[in-house]
Structures are given as structure tokens and as C-alpha cells.
């Protein structure tokens, strides 16, 4: 218990007048509003926040930021929450994760005792054989896996997306980033400024009083500009081609996380630097932390992490930490100035730091060891833009080299300087970013069809001053060994061992040791890993270079990627009626259709005996106009179309260029140059594209206009022996058999609605009229049919009854009875294929198929046991088990009182009364026979033609 709350600090972001009670590890704690979980717990003396991944070593604050590898906790149902970033809230329940049974006493910490056996590749080497035992190994190993837990309950947070097109997007709200955003906005650009912390300011926040004055002034300027949108507590997860930038925004009320998909004209990277840990014996003990962590805790949160400190400093940040510690009354046991050659050999203690041994042989009692040994440039976004940063030994860090025109960098990632110099650099960079963005904008607006013309900004690039690089000693590892990757428990010894085993390429060593593969993804450990690996292989950092950084920069929730659940669904105009009349919804592609209204068998009987109506609005309808429509029909259908007179409709089959059946339907001629094509419900879009593709690529000069009008008509099929009577009561069209024969089309008024067209066709095999009504009137006509037909016993029927009715008639459904290999011949439409036509889509393949033979045939099948309905997809087999076909459709026919099927069988089995053996899902077989006609019912078709 060594941390404590300091007296109020000038720059603190906590509100001491508002206390917040929360729970940690089943105990009550109190912090202040604005505290992070880590700062509130540190203030109350807690030092251990997690157990490490492999050895279950106790771990405490290291960086005190989002990227702290040791501060992953469970908050309620939320795993892997970053305690150095997440603010406490009243009633928040925070628990340690990856501990068993408790944080203080962790059984798996015994791994530490066997640590020397847990060498790199231990799991690969140990558990690879005997292979059959892997499932058993896996169960045990799973208990050792890191990470939190997700409850099984349905989660209710809201995630959403937003598209944005700012001229300039600035990543990082420190002095340079804010200055760049202001300058870009003042040059006339629209700007988004993204900051990872909940407040702007960056390192100025925990700097001097003068720093905070500059910070406040910049913030007030940022806030005063209307076209500058600030996103705090947000992170740029990645930069993709053409400056597609993904921002994860967490500061929107009512939304857990929002993914902002920004198409940015110029990206300004002002992410500053990350402080780097130092590798030495005991460097992962709680109480060993970075200078910026200490400065943040003291200045922002009024929290001291210890009482007696040793500070190892190689730079001004370490010196500032000494000043901060002294200010709040922490005893400074020693300041080890690395610039004069002294360093740390070991942090001693079990469970927490109790002493520090320096390289001069002095041992200091301390509960806090602060290190300030260098900076890592988080160049991820620059790498993603194609940059290969260069290592500069004199400042011991990577610096950007060649950036594309649409990406600029400013601030600490570029170089060092006074606050004024950083602001000046940011301002110049922002102005240049704005100039480049507006140049692009002027071009884009000129090219946009309705874009406004605008004057481009000056052509001459602005000269951005350079930033120098302060000299810094190269400090990565002391003469002792310690941890390099805290997330994955990889030590410097492991990396050296890997190199000795032959993993002399860093890419291989990374994968072998897993250094850099944990949640922090290299931000804390990559440079040290490079240095240690270089030390072992005798290569310098320059030669080994960085590994490739990949997005995301910070973890992104799956919910954020998914966003709102916007799944397009389509409804017919009659949907309100269906919903209020007990229709069971069926998702047919995007369409929501009534499967049935309670009893599909009863619906079938109603259609066969009286009259029924079905909503077939999803049927594809394509309006075709022009003198060359017959040529188009002749080309896309396999049958002949040249002599279709006005008022007639014809059934047609389309094949793709592979000869496979694409779609089927009827097309009617409404007027001299006006046709209406119908397609299957699922094929409407495909056929529309198919027609347009041929017209645009092969027949651009044909006089044909294609308009998809599926949704313009509510479509109702009125089917059954009494359908003529029913429709006749509502229409001015003469329905007498002579005036309106089978396979013809008429236009007229139905239930006082004009501009309807009616075709006398149907899928059910009954006398039927397919009525197409301008969609806005669909609901009223549907209601009228039910009202005036009450005495006829009219009832609605759904998709299921229609499937039974058509199966009784043996009509195939494209995509169910045919598949991706079903070429035209053999599917019962052979009669339609006219190879004597000059040309049509699919002809060459169909010619080949016709000559080649030996294709499956679609046949009607009935089982010997009339009650037995073999499920669809059952195989048809030979006695020796050879597969000879399959059932494609099967139902119990209410009309025939027996089971009926369609199926594909080998050609030699396509003979009436051919005996078949069907294999059932339970492994038994059942006999069946091939029928003479596809139609099980009314094979002559007299009912439909009546």
C-alpha cells in the first residue's frame, strides 16, 4: 500500500467535489469523477491489476494509458477494458481477469517455477504429438488462456456507422495536432480532429504551467471554429488506400462505439511519441513504471503511485517526473542519470518493488522505480500509407521518410522542439494540408456532374519548417535480462534463445516467440524486441528495420464493425393485411412473404375445389419497349418468340452461356411495341442485369428500352374453378373462355382500379387469372376480392400451398428442381429448346449437351408407401449404394392423399414405372417408381384451359 492521493494539482482532470463509488475485485472503492480505474485504485494503494499471460506474474501500472499491457480488466460484462483509459462510473463493477482463484493468490503462478521449461515454442513443441491427444490438450490449455469473459446474454449496446468526407483529418490532439487543425480550418478546409484521450492537449496537459496556458488557448481556438469537428475518446484504427480512414468514436451519447468511415483528402498524423520501457531484471514488478505514467498520475489525477522513488532518467521527461514527485512529497531515494552512464541492474522484491540495484553497485530501498529511457514513434498510420521510417541512432528512434502527397506528419513523431516550435510546425503543416486538400477538392468538384466550380488554392507548396532531433542515448536493455513483451510474457532471454535456435529473421522470431503479437501489438515492445534481436544476431536496428504495422491501431469491437442491424427486407403492398391475418412470415430472399395462414393443406383444397388468392407481388416484372423487343426475346429465351401477337403470352426458359437454366417465366405482348416480361421472384434482378448486359455489350443499336417495374404492381393470382366467377365480378374485361383464352393477356379495370393487366396463366394448374394492379391500390383490390368472393368461399393461400399445388402439377422451380449444373436438356423443357434458331444465349453449350447426352433427367416420382414423404435432398441409389439421383421436391399431396416428388435421376432411369431406391436420413431405404408425366395431377392440363 504505497500510492496515495496528492493535494490538488493545477492541471488535474478529476473533480474532487464529486466522489464515485465502484467495486474492484469484490471490494468497494471510492474515486473522483474523472479518475481512470487505474488512477482511482492507485490512489488507494492498489498496485496489482492483472496477472501476466504465461507466468501469471503480478503486474501493475506501466504506461497508465490505453496501451498499458498490464491494465486489462473486466468491467461488468465487458472484457479487456483498458483500466488506464476507462473512467470510473458510479456502481461500476471491475474485476481482474486471467486470475484463478484470486488476484492475490494465483495457482497458475506456479508456471513461474517451471518458467525455464516454458521456452519459446514450448506449446508447439510439446503438444504436437501424439496428434490424437490434441483435443485433450486443448481443453487444459484453454483454462490458461488470457482474456476476459463475455456473458451469454444478448447485448443491448448500440453501435452505428457514419460516413464522413472531411477535407483534412488530424490524428492527435496535442499542441501540433491542434495547431494543424486550426490552420487547416482557417485555410478554408473542413476538418475533423481525433484525440484518443477524453480531452485535448496531449503532453501539455501534464507539463508546466506555461504548457497548460498554451494548451487552454489552443483548445479555445479549436472550439471556436465551426467547421472543425472534434472527436475525443476516439481513435483512428487504420488508414487504407485513397485515404480511407477508419475512426472509432466513443464520445457519442447513446452509442457505445461509432465507426466513422472517413474519406479524407489530406491526413495529418500528429500522434506524438510513446514512451519506451527498459529491459532489466525485475522490470515487470508492480512499482516499475514509465516517467509519463507517473507524470500523468500525479498531474492529471492527483495520485502518487509510491512514497519512495528511484528515477532512472535519460531525458527531460524523467527530470520532470523527479520534479513532480518532489512536489507531492515523494521521497527521492536516488536519481540515476543515464546520460552520465549509470543505469539500473535490477528491481528487487516479490510481488512489488522493494529495492533497486544500480550499475554502481548501490542498492536503494524504494517502492517506485521510474524509467525515462526513450521514445518510440508510433508510425503505424504512416506505414499504412507506404512510408518506411528510418532509424536514427543519435535520437534512438524512428523518424518518417517519404510520405505520399495526401499524408503529412507533424509534432513529436517528426521531431523535437519547444512548445512554440511544435505549434509553429503544426500550423505550417495544417496550412499545407489545407492547401493540398482544397486543390483536390477543386478538381473533384470540377469532375462531379453537378459540382460547383471553385478557385483552387495557390499552387506553390508551403515550406514546412523542419524539427530537430534531440540527442538521446540508445537504451534498450541493461546488462541483465527482463521482459520485452509484457502482453505475451516474452523476455529478452527468449528472444536471444530464438536467435540461437536459428530464428535470425525478425519476422520469424516474432512469430516463434510471439513478441509483439499481444493486445498492445508492438506499440510498447517492438523497438526493444528489435534491439534485443539485433543484439543476438549482430545486426543493427537499421538493418533489421521494423516489422510491418497492420491495422487496427487499437482493438475494435465486433459490434462496431457490424454497426446497426440494417438488413434490407422487401414487403408487398398487401403486407399490412397479411400481418393482421395470421400469416406465418417466410423470408424468401429479401422478400417477406406469407408461408401460410394456418393450414396449407386446407388452402390447397380450397384452390382445387373453389377459389383462392395468393399474393405473388415478388414475381419479377420487366417493361420492354421498342421495335427490337422480339429480337431480344428470341435471343435470351431458348424457345421461339418471333410471332407473338398482341394479347398473347408465352412461357419461356432462359439459359446462361453455360447452358444452365437461368430463369423461367412468361412474357406477354401488351401493344405493338410494348411487352411485359415476368421472371421468378428470386430471379428478377438477375434477369434485369442479364438483359441490360446483352443490350449494352452486344446489341447497343437495338431499339429496346428495359425498365424494371416489379414493385410497381401488386400481383394477385386468383386460382381455382371459380376464379372466373370471382374476377368477373370486379372487372370490365370480358373473361369468357372465347374472349380471353388460356395464355393470353388483357388490360383493363379491376375493382375500379385502372391500368391493370391480367394474364390467364398460373402455377397451380387450375383456371387462374394473374391480376397485376398499380401497387398503391393492391391492398384495396385484395380486400375487394375477399369481400365479393365470400359466398364463393374464397380464401388466401400462401407460398407453401402454392408449392404443393405446383408439385402436384409437376412444374419445376428454377434453383430448387434445377441447380447450378442443370443445363437445358433433361429438365422437362426439352420441347422448348430450338437449336434451329440462328443464335441465342447458351446455344453452343446446349448443342454440345444435346450431342453428348448422359445428363440427369428431372422426373416425377412416387413412393410405394403413400404416406412416406422422403425429405428433399434424399439420395436415389443403386442396391450397391451408388448414387443415381436425388429428390428435389417432395410433399404430401392433399388432393391425391399421397406423397409426391420430383427428382433428378441418371438418364437410363428415366423410364415410366422404373423402380427406384430412395435412401432416407435414418439410413433405411424405401422403394419408389418413376411416373409417366411430370404432373401427378391432371396431366392433360384440362383444368387450366377450361
Amino acid at each position, binding site marked *: 500500500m504505497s500510492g496515495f492521493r496528492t493535494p490538488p494539482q493545477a492541471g488535474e482532470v478529476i473533480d474532487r467535489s464529486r466522489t464515485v463509488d465502484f467495486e474492484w475485485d469484490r471490494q468497494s472503492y471510492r474515486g473522483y469523477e474523472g479518475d481512470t480505474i487505474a488512477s482511482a485504485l492507485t490512489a488507494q494503494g492498489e498496485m496489482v491489476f492483472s496477472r501476466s499471460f504465461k507466468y501469471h506474474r503480478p503486474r501493475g501500472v506501466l504506461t497508465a494509458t490505453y496501451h498499458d499491457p498490464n491494465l486489462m480488466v473486466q468491467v461488468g460484462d465487458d472484457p479487456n477494458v483498458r483500466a488506464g483509459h476507462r473512467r470510473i462510473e458510479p456502481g461500476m463493477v471491475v474485476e481482474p481477469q486471467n486470475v484463478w482463484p484470486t488476484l492475490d493468490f494465483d495457482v497458475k503462478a506456479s508456471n513461474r517455477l517451471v518458467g525455464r521449461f516454458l521456452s519459446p515454442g514450448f506449446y508447439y513443441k510439446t503438444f504436437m504429438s501424439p496428434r490424437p491427444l490434441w483435443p485433450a490438450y486443448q481443453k487444459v490449455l484453454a483454462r490458461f488462456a488470457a482474456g476476459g469473459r463475455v456473458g451469454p446474454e444478448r447485448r443491448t449496446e448500440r453501435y*452505428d*456507422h*457514419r*460516413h*464522413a*468526407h472531411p477535407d483534412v483529418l488530424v490524428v492527435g490532439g496535442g499542441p501540433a495536432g491542434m495547431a494543424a487543425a486550426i490552420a487547416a480550418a482557417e485555410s478554408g478546409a*473542413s476538418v475533423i480532429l481525433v484525440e484518443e484521450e477524453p480531452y485535448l492537449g496531449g503532453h501539455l496537459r501534464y507539463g508546466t504551467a506555461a504548457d497548460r496556458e498554451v494548451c487552454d488557448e489552443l483548445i479555445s481556438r479549436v472550439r471556436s471554429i465551426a467547421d472543425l469537428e472534434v472527436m475525443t475518446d476516439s481513435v483512428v484504427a487504420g488508414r487504407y488506400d485513397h485515404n480511407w480512414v477508419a475512426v472509432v468514436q466513443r464520445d457519442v451519447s*447513446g452509442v457505445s462505439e461509432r465507426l466513422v*468511415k472517413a*474519406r479524407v483528402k489530406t491526413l495529418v498524423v500528429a500522434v506524438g511519441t510513446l514512451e519506451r520501457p527498459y529491459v532489466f531484471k525485475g522490470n515487470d514488478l508492480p512499482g516499475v513504471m514509465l516517467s509519463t505514467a507517473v507524470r500523468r498520475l500525479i498531474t492529471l489525477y492527483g495520485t502518487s503511485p509510491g512514497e519512495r522513488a528511484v528515477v532512472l532518467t535519460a531525458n527531460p521527461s524523467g527530470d520532470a517526473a523527479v520534479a513532480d514527485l518532489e512536489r507531492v512529497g515523494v521521497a527521492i531515494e536516488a536519481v540515476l542519470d543515464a546520460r552520465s552512464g549509470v543505469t539500473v541492474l535490477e528491481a528487487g522484491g516479490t510481488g512489488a518493488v522493494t529495492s533497486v540495484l544500480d550499475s554502481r553497485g548501490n542498492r536503494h530501498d524504494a517502492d517506485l522505480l521510474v524509467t525515462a529511457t526513450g521514445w518510440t514513434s508510433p508510425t503505424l498510420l504512416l506505414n499504412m500509407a507506404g512510408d518506411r521510417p528510418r532509424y536514427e541512432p543519435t535520437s534512438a528512434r524512428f523518424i518518417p521518410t517519404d510520405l505520399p502527397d495526401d499524408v503529412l506528419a507533424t509534432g513529436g513523431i517528426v521531431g523535437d522542439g519547444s512548445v512554440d516550435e511544435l505549434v509553429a510546425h503544426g500550423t505550417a503543416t495544417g496550412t499545407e494540408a489545407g492547401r493540398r486538400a482544397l486543390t483536390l*477538392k477543386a478538381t*473533384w*468538384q470540377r469532375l*462531379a*456532374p*453537378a*459540382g*460547383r466550380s*471553385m478557385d483552387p488554392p495557390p499552387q506553390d507548396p508551403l515550406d514546412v519548417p523542419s524539427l530537430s532531433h534531440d540527442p538521446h542515448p540508445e537504451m534498450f536493455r541493461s546488462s541483465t535480462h527482463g521482459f520485452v513483451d509484457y502482453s505475451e510474457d516474452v523476455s529478452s532471454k527468449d528472444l536471444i534463445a530464438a536467435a540461437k535456435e536459428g530464428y535470425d529473421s525478425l519476422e520469424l522470431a516474432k512469430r516463434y516467440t510471439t513478441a509483439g503479437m499481444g493486445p498492445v501489438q508492438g506499440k510498447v515492445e517492438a523497438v526493444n524486441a528489435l534491439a534485443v534481436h539485433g543484439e543476438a544476431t549482430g545486426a543493427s536496428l537499421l538493418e533489421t528495420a521494423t516489422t510491418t504495422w497492420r491495422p487496427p491501431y487499437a482493438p475494435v469491437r465486433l459490434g462496431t464493425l457490424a454497426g*446497426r442491424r*440494417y*438488413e*434490407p*427486407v*422487401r*414487403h*408487398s*403492398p398487401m*403486407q399490412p393485411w397479411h400481418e393482421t391475418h395470421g400469416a406465418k412470415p417466410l423470408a424468401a430472399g429479401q*422478400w417477406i412473404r406469407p408461408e401460410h395462414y394456418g393450414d396449407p393443406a386446407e388452402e390447397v383444397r380450397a384452390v382445387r375445389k373453389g377459389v383462392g388468392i395468393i399474393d405473388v*407481388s*415478388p414475381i419479377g416484372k420487366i*417493361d420492354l*419497349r421498342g421495335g427490337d423487343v422480339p429480337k431480344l426475346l428470341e435471343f435470351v429465351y431458348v424457345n421461339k418468340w418471333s410471332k407473338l401477337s398482341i394479347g398473347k403470352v408465352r412461357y419461356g426458359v432462359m439459359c446462361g452461356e453455360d447452358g444452365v437454366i437461368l430463369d423461367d417465366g412468361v412474357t406477354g405482348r401488351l401493344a405493338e411495341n410494348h411487352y411485359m416480361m415476368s421472371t421468378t421472384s428470386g430471379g428478377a434482378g438477375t434477369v434485369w442485369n442479364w438483359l441490360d448486359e446483352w443490350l449494352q455489350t452486344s446489341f447497343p443499336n437495338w431499339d429496346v*428500352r428495359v*425498365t*424494371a*417495374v*416489379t*414493385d*410497381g*404492381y401488386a400481383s394477385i393470382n386468383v386460382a381455382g374453378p371459380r376464379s372466373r366467377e370471382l374476377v368477373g365480378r370486379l372487372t370490365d374485361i370480358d373473361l369468357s373462355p372465347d374472349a380471353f383464352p388460356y395464355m393470353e393477356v388483357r388490360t383493363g379495370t379491376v375493382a375500379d382500379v385502372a*391500368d391493370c393487366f391480367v394474364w390467364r396463366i398460373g402455377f397451380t394448374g387450375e383456371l387462374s387469372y394473374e391480376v397485376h394492379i*398499380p*401497387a*398503391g391500390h393492391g391492398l384495396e383490390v385484395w380486400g375487394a376480392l375477399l369481400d365479393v368472393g365470400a359466398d364463393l368461399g374464397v380464401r388466401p393461400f400462401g407460398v407453401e400451398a402454392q408449392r404443393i399445388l405446383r408439385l402436384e402439377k409437376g412444374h419445376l422451380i428454377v434453383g430448387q428442381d434445377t441447380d447450378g449444373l442443370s443445363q437445358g436438356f433433361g429438365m422437362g423443357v426439352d420441347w422448348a429448346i430450338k437449336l434451329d434458331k440462328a443464335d441465342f444465349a447458351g446455344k453452343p453449350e446446349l448443342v454440345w449437351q444435346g450431342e453428348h447426352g448422359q445428363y440427369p433427367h428431372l422426373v416425377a416420382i412416387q413412393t410405394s408407401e403413400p404416406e412416406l414423404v422422403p425429405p428433399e435432398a434424399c439420395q436415389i441409389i443403386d442396391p450397391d449404394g451408388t448414387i443415381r439421383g436425388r429428390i428435389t421436391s417432395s410433399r404430401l399431396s392433399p388432393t391425391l392423399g399421397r406423397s409426391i416428388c420430383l427428382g433428378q435421376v441418371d438418364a437410363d432411369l428415366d423410364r415410366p414405372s422404373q423402380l427406384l431406391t430412395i435412401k432416407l436420413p435414418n439410413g433405411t431405404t424405401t422403394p419408389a417408381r418413376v411416373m409417366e408425366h411430370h404432373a401427378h395431377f391432371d396431366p392433360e392440363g384440362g383444368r387450366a384451359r377450361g
Partner: protein
Amino acid sequence: MAELTFHDRSDVPKWRVFEGYEVRPGTSTGSGGDLVWSVSPGEWTALGGQPDGEVVDLTHVRSMFRLTGEQAATLINRVCALDLDDGMFPSGAAARTLFAGVVTELVRDDVDGAPSYLILPSRSFGTYLRRVIEDAGAEFQLRLDQVR
């Protein structure tokens, strides 16, 4: 800030026309009830009275929603990736685009200086898109009282 309003204008007559206009793809002419726009070569959509010559009646094929207000573009950008910047997509611009996963035509036709967009999905997606707009618009206190 002017409030955001939503109106269902599906009843307005809409016509597909194949010749006779100079309007280039991506642009519109006229406003309100006599708007004409194009989003692909050789095809125009006209509102209002039936134009001369060969036409296809699209009145019942398309729903038509009008979204008006300073926040309209922000709302549309919740579910549509199009750059709606005033310079890129001012009043008089038209596009065929994806709107919450549905192909729609989008036409900007400002009303009394307020940004206003016509959203035209295929009619069967109308209910779905209205729900999407309602969901995405909750944040903007979108008024839905005029929605039928």
C-alpha cells in the same frame, strides 16, 4: 438550427422518359413538382404531369421520401457513403447510390434555402427504409408525425 422533417411523397406521379431532355446524368433541372433528373445515359425521371412521347409510369414503382433540414446530409451519411458536401452535391445534383444496402436514387432539391433530398427506393423497400431513417434520425429528433 432548422428542424429536420420527413415527408412521404410517394403519391407524386413519376415517369421514366427516354428522350427529349438535355439534363446530364448526375444532374437535375426544375424543382419541387416539375423536377427532372438523370442518373444514367439515355434515361430521365420526371415528376408531375405525363410528359409527351414514350413513357413508363414509375409512380407505383418507386417510393419517394423528402428529407429536409440542415442535418439531412449527416443523417443520410449514417447509411449512405456518398459525399454530400455542398460543393460536390449541391441542389441540382442527382445520383443512384446505395442507401442502407438498398439501391436508391438520391436527388438534392433544396426548399427555401434549406438542404432537401428526395430519396427514391423501389417501393417494396419503402417500409424498411422508413424504419431505417426513423432509427438513424432518432439522434436528430426527426419529426415523423407527417409520415403516413
